[in-house]
């Protein structure tokens, strides 16, 4: 079997905030024992979680901008740390990112051309200037943009949709093996999202795998082959996206799915959420060592759940579909 593209094993990340005053040091366990394996075959893997779930931290570990406090992060068999230290140029060639904010990813001082030319030059994608210009034009056109309307302009002169598509063109030029997309459509209007996501899926045919990070399960389902759900730093459930969405097992996944607004006015939410329970969780008291991470909010919580952390394992009756759930309901 080919070695997996990306292998994150038991990743843990702790942030400490030193304070000289009352209270001393504050530690936050952003990630706790997260395992994620991206096989070699190009696919889209969605990492779904609310804010505070640690998904952005995990993405930064994959890119090499953060180091894990525990566990190993391997890209094509070699630790990410190794790549960054000794083979940085090649790592940057093979692993790239699209960020969430189409406004902030551009340096307002320069024209947008720079974003594209800097990859052409830095990674020696073209032998000469003409070839480089043709590549850039081709990449923009492949993303549905017209080069004469885009090149030569400053970021503030273009719309958010155009800016994100230029970022896509940048990825198209590079053809990385792994693309980490951190909420790339959340700041785009709904009408632009579908088109952006289509391009992202088309990248699969170009051999680009995508780790798609989002809080929107809707979008995750739309684009991903596999989904992993994170809750406050722990894996709750993962498997093929069809299974997860059509047949969610973990109560947290069920809550997420039922909370998605339905664009059909005939089918509205039937029950009101229990506001008080959610309030408690938001106060981050749930991140305690013992017990299931979702215990305080779970509508089907059992006594066992408050004292023990359910392990992530395959579920009886679902052994065929490669999926795992961390919940005592399925023991």
């Amino acid at each position, binding site marked *: 079997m080919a070695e997996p593209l990306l292998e994150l094993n038991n990743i843990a990340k702790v942030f400490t905030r030193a304070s000289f005053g009352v209270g001393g040091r504050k530690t936050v366990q952003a990630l706790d024992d997260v395992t994620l394996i991206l096989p070699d075959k190009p696919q889209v893997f969605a990492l779904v979680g*609310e804010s505070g779930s640690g998904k952005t931290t995990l993405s930064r570990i994959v890119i090499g901008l953060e180091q894990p406090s525990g566990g190993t992060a391997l890209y094509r068999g070699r630790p990410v740390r190794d790549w960054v230290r000794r083979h940085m140029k090649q790592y940057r060639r093979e692993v790239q990112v699209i960020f969430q904010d189409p406004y902030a990813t551009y340096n307002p001082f320069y024209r947008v051309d720079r974003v594209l030319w800097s990859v052409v030059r830095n990674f020696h994608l073209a032998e000469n200037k003409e070839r480089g210009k043709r590549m850039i034009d081709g990449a923009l056109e492949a993303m549905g943009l017209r080069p004469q309307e885009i090149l030569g302009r400053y970021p503030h002169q273009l*719309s958010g949709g155009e800016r994100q598509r230029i970022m896509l063109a940048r990825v198209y030029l590079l053809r990385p093996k792994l693309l980490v997309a951190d909420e790339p459509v959340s700041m785009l209007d*709904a009408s632009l999202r*579908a088109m952006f996501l289509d391009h992202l899926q088309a990248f699969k045919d170009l051999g680009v795998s995508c780790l798609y990070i989002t809080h929107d399960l809707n979008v995750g389902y739309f684009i991903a082959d596999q989904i992993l759900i994170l809750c406050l730093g722990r894996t709750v459930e993962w498997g093929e996206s069809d299974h997860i*969405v059509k047949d969610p097992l973990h109560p947290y996944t069920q809550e997420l799915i039922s909370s998605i607004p*339905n*664009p059909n006015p005939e089918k509205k939410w039937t029950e009101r*959420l229990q506001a008080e329970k959610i*309030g408690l969780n*938001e106060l981050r008291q749930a991140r305690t060592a013992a017990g299931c991470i979702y215990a305080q909010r779970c509508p089907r919580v059992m006594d066992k759940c408050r004292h023990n952390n359910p392990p992530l394992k395959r579920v009886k009756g679902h052994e065929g579909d490669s999926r795992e759930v961390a919940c005592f309901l399925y023991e």
Partner: protein
Amino acid sequence: MESLLEVKGLNVSVRTIAGNMNITDNVSFGVYEKEILGIAGESGCGKSTVVETVLNLIVAPRYIESGQVLLKGRDLLTLSPRDLQNVRWKEVAYVPQGSMNTLNPVLKIEEQIVDAIICHSKLSKAQAKEAAVAALRSVGMSPDVARMYPHELSGGMRQRVCIGLSTALKPAVILADEPVTALDVVMQRLNLETLARLRDQDGITVVMVTHDMACHAEICDRVCVMYAGRVAEIGETRTLFAEPLHPYTQGLLRAVPSIQNRHSESIPGIAPSPTAWPKGCRFHPRCKQAMEICSREVPPLREIRPKRLVACHLYNAEGGARNG
């Protein structure tokens, strides 16, 4: 039915280096009591500007060219600053976009709500404190939250605090600009339900601006769809979603990817910018059903069916095809 709040022929423009440009063109709609009206549209369509105009929050380089905003018959745009101060927060409250990030980080929640109350009413500090706690309760938050600092709460909870803040003086109308956009899906649901509860239990009218059509479907009674500074269609949510009449509304509803509908397609082309509005109907360059007249004349907003207004030549006598 008499409308509680009515926007009539609103024209807002902006002064730029290249001349004055139009942001909203002849925008008119009415809001009734005890309903939630959603204003939908892509970014840049002018929906936020319309809401800001209601409380006359337009400052240079933008300016109001013409139009009226009638609250129970009184034109808010002609009020003196002092009279307007009495309307703001007491009769019409405003929750701006991203307001969860504008809470003062060094003051407790309670102090901020009390500040706002004292500023806009004649209540004493003790009375204001009680009103603050009541405001938090009305959005389903426990009084403990009052003694916390903003950074101790998550984004979703801060947004609920802001909504609570807006109910403090029991206004008749709350204007909410993108109240749930930056929130996680569970927090989003919570905040939307909060707004719905304000309508159901306290009889408050809400005008909610958002580009997310699914949110409109969940809690709005009626929806007003805007495009490029003009109103395209207004109608009751159920019928509008079931049978959208304006081609833009049709495109918008088709473009929403969802779990229920895995297939979606985006509207071709790019939204125009104020520097180059198309002539006639501003949607015609992207419209699959465009006719010759669409590039010449601006379609008027007409009541094609009971309780449904559409601005499209397809439904005019000259246009032909369909008819009410």
